[in-house]
């Protein structure tokens, strides 16, 4: 027997750190049952996420694989892992004040976010179907628990149960698809599938359809989006902010990697599915959001629509398309987290309100918050010169380069429709009579809002780092 060479574990160091750290924090929380434990665990978890990010930054460039080829770290993985870690750390920061006010401080919150993030990193690095499934389950199972975290609240438990049941169903479909693909290609590794799947066969296409159904559920794309508004509305708001950020990035990463690496030879077959899903998501995200009065539901429809836009890049099936998806996910995450920082600041006394009408006249009661929220909403709508415009620009550019003109045109049209409801909130904030104002915004929320607002505002001045990084990351898949 060989002695284990620990160098082979090095590519998985961030995951090992997070998993080990999560277990250590679990011990800390279980044995140290004083008042401040939850806060301590929160900050330690943030530190752990930052350390994992630093480890990823320090990794040598190029592609490394380990665990018999089922775990791959390349430019694509590093880019998305950094994004997911940022999203998770921000989600914990966003939850600090909310959980304190609601007296829902529990150390398990940060531990579950850490374990979920471990799952995301495993998912992003997954190079075969089994690793993909295990990473996905680790991520989702933590999310189900987090959705029901406010366990005495009927809506939160309903959200958790709904998410769990539908998530289990989608996992079943994904597994069925994976088993069909294994059956028709004889391997689970993406590279191996690409070698075997040189020509479309009926069984393989069946497998792809089921696999995509599972993927679409996880990124909440139409027609598997039904759970999103209910879960987003019912779950505690910081959890919703988490749902809308990091897990979406990881799920999009899995969709892109599994598709681009496994099925490059049969692009024409899966492209039509992605085109349909993209169009349907963009349209539903734009039209269904119009009638919403609850801002968390609105954000749910908004995220459905944005996933449609991101899929436009995947539908292009080219390196430019993948680059578009990566830029889109980065900018989408920054916009969403900023918007949720505002939603979490909607506190009157000890109650958190979540209706759009509660925002009326915010420009007069809280001009700074109103300005930044308006900025983010303009960015979400994709109005130049904000970052959201460039996100859409790159995916549509990729679609046009691949000859998908109709898709790009429909995308632009739906984004015009979508602009309506974003601008409606701006109108409510700036031109309606003031409603009772909100409590002072805590510093943590201010910091998140400020960073995301400035990022969106100043992206046009210095876009090169993100765009170059995304371009390099996208090229590593091809």
């Amino acid at each position, binding site marked *: 027997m060989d002695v284990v060479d620990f160098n082979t574990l090095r590519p998985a160091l961030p995951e090992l750190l997070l998993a080990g750290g999560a277990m250590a924090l679990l011990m800390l929380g279980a044995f140290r049952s004083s008042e401040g434990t939850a806060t301590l665990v929160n900050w330690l978890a943030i530190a752990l996420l930052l350390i994992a990010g630093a480890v990823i930054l320090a990794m040598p460039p190029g592609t490394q694989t380990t665990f*018999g080829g089922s775990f791959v770290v390349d430019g694509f993985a590093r880019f998305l892992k950094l994004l997911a870690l940022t999203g998770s750390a921000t989600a914990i920061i966003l939850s600090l004040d909310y959980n304190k006010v609601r007296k829902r401080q529990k150390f398990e919150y940060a531990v579950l976010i850490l374990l979920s993030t471990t799952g995301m990193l495993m998912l992003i690095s997954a190079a075969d179907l089994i690793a993909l499934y*295990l990473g996905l389950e680790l991520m989702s*199972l933590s999310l189900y628990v987090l959705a029901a975290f406010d366990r005495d609240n009927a809506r939160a438990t309903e959200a958790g149960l709904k998410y769990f049941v539908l998530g289990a169903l989608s996992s079943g479909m994904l597994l069925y698809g994976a088993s069909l693909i294994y059956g028709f290609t004889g*391997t689970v590794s993406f590279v191996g599938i690409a070698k075997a799947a040189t020509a479309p066969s009926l069984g393989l296409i069946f497998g792809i359809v089921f696999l995509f159904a599972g993927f679409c559920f996880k990124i909440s794309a139409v027609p598997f989006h039904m759970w999103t508004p209910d879960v987003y509305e019912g779950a505690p708001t910081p959890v919703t902010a988490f749902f809308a950020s990091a897990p979406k990035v990881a799920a999009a990463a899995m969709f892109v990697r599994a598709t681009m690496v496994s099925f490059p030879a049969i692009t024409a077959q899966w492209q039509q599915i992605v085109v349909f899903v993209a169009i349907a998501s963009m349209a539903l995200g734009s039209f269904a959001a119009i009638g919403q009065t609850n801002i968390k539901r609105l954000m749910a429809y908004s995220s459905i629509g944005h996933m449609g836009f991101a899929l436009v890049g995947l539908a292009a099936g080219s390196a430019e398309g993948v680059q578009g998806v990566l830029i889109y996910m980065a900018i989408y995450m920054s916009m969403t987290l900023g918007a949720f920082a505002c939603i979490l600041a909607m506190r009157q006394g000890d109650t958190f309100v979540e209706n759009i009408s509660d925002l009326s006249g915010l420009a007069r009661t809280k001009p700074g918050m109103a300005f930044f929220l308006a900025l983010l909403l303009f960015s979400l709508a994709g109005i130049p010169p904000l970052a959201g415009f460039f996100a859409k620009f790159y995916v549509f550019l990729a679609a046009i380069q691949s000859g998908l003109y109709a898709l790009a045109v429909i995308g632009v049209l739906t984004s015009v429709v979508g602009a309506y409801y974003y601008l409606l909130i701006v109108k409510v904030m700036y031109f309606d009579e003031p409603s009772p104002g909100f409590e002072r915004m805590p510093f943590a929320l201010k910091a998140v809002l400020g960073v995301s607002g400035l990022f969106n505002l100043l992206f046009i001045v210095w876009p090169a780092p993100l765009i170059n990084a995304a371009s390099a990351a996208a090229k590593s898949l091809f």
Partner: protein
Amino acid sequence: MISALFFYLFASLCVASAFMVIASKNPVHAVLFLILAFVNASGLFILLGAEFLAMILVVVYVGAVAVLFLFVVMMLDVDFVELREGFLQYLPVGGLVGVIFLAELLLVLGAWVINPSMPQTITAPIPAADAISNTEALGLVLYTRYVYYFQAAGLVLLVAMIGAIVLTLRHKPQVKRQNISDQVARTKETAMEVVKVQPGQGLSQ
């Protein structure tokens, strides 16, 4: 000859008990028949030479899942007769969906062609059944080639455990708990009190 006899014994018992699972009115009987069906199915696996699957079926399904079922059925007051009331009403639609699904599956199975490039993609050759047993073959790869999957699955189970505790555990203040360190630290001095009782006065307090 003898294996054929056992096959028919196990197979017929399995089908019969599976039928009884859905036919019996008493839910406890249904679960007991389910256990019988599992045991017979594991017998079939042994006939196939899949001794590991047979073991797992008995250990996991009979030992854990079915017993858990039985426990739930006996603990909860679920009226199964009432549950089945809507059965006939939903039968046409449910049957239609089932038939469509079956047709689609047959379509896929009908198109089943062994990919000519498949033998090259299979990572390791499959040894002959008498050279190595299933359990041994699994044991050879589970903690080596598949250690990553194994550990990942372990993490998933850890999350399930944390989730169950977070969502259901409640600390009730009135409940008396066993505190072993308190029990061990108890001495004669702290546990006993010698009281001098005056005759005819009884014990106050």
